[in-house]
């Protein structure tokens, strides 16, 4: 029987659908939302390069999104994306990868890309765990959670990655969850359009390798929790820190103008080339 077709399949390698994500996994929703943002922006995927690392979230752009993609090594998508952007500033370069990828092993690339304010859009899917490898602790795992590598409960506090990136110098920073699909689409559109380093922390669900450890076994249970625990940033600013325990601060953390790395780089390069040319003309 012929099946109905969602228009977003125009942006997806349809021949390999259904994708490999577990039922109710947030990775699928991020793929859905991302294609909608690209469709709203009327961006031609041919003018995009999507870069990912290793992990379930890294599969969102590669292989599923139908643009040129670079599926790189664990932790290095931002490093590869930097190379792409410097050589091809005309292309939109988007990184979609997991919290382990981006804030764990790749954490140093993240803070320096934000400091340089290079024109990349980084969408970090924060499922608070190393999902693909079976549920090891991540730098984003909340304190007190039992994971396969913290059998006596996690003693470390989690990274507040969006705040970290904002402090490091990014032009645009937001945090939403996989429940806030309309806001997330809007944020992705803003991030992709923004000149400079744009970062969205997407709080997402891994029902299989995280949820079962914290008593949230399905995507539905996670989304209910996100809906309940989300607090808009303006409201959060009025509350003392202890009242924000367990809450997910959502909204736009930064939206500012700062010099962008590749345009600055090309400006100084051009200045130097012009100088050399002028000197050569003087000699000849």
């Amino acid at each position, binding site marked *: *029987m012929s*099946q*109905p*077709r*969602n228009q*977003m*399949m125009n942006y*997806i390698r349809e021949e390999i*659908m*259904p*994708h490999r*994500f*577990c*039922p*109710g*996994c*947030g*990775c*699928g*929703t991020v*793929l*859905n*939302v991302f*294609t*909608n943002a690209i469709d709203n922006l009327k961006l031609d995927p041919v003018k995009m390069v999507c870069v990912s690392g290793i992990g379930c979230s890294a599969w969102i752009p590669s292989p599923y999104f139908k643009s040129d993609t670079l599926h790189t090594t664990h932790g290095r998508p931002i490093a590869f994306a930097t190379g792409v952007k410097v050589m091809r500033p005309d292309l939109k370069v988007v990184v979609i990868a997991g919290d382990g990828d981006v804030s764990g092993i790749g954490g140093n690339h993240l803070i320096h890309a934000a400091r340089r304010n290079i024109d990349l859009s980084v969408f970090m899917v924060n499922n608070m765990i190393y999902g693909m490898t079976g549920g090891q602790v991540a730098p984003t795992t909340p304190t007190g959670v039992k994971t396969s590598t913290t059998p006596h409960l996690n003693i470390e506090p989690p990274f507040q990655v969006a705040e970290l990136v904002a402090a490091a110098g990014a032009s645009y920073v937001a945090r939403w969850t*996989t*429940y*806030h*699909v*309309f*806001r997330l*689409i*809007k944020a992705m559109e803003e991030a992709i359009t923004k000149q400079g380093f744009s970062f969205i922390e997407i709080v997402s669900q891994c029902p299989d390798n995280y949820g079962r450890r914290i008593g949230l076994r*399905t*995507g*539905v249970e996670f*989304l*209910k929790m996100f809906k309940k625990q989300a607090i808009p940033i303006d409201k959060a600013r009025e509350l003392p820190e202890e009242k924000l325990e367990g809450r997910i601060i959502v909204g736009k953390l930064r939206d500012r103008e700062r010099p962008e790395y590749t345009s600055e780089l090309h400006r100084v390069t051009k200045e130097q080339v012009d100088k050399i040319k002028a000197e050569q003309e003087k000699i000849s």
Partner: protein
Amino acid sequence: MQAGSKMTENKPKSNWVIEINENLCKGCEICIEFCPFTIFGKSDKLNRKGYYLPVVLIENKCNGCRLCELLCPEIAIVLTEE
């Protein structure tokens, strides 16, 4: 209600047709849970992969807010305005 959704009470009535791609659905029940008008229900029909498919119970209550379509991790829901 989701901020930013296009839902308004006084939107002129139109007919939205909701279809589910049975090959893609993984029976996560997100559409069933989060439709603001509780349009979907569980069915006892299994797809080829062994997932229970949702069923549209009361289509004429849909106002085309698109929440189910966007939340669906499988991009299995297709909304069309007639």
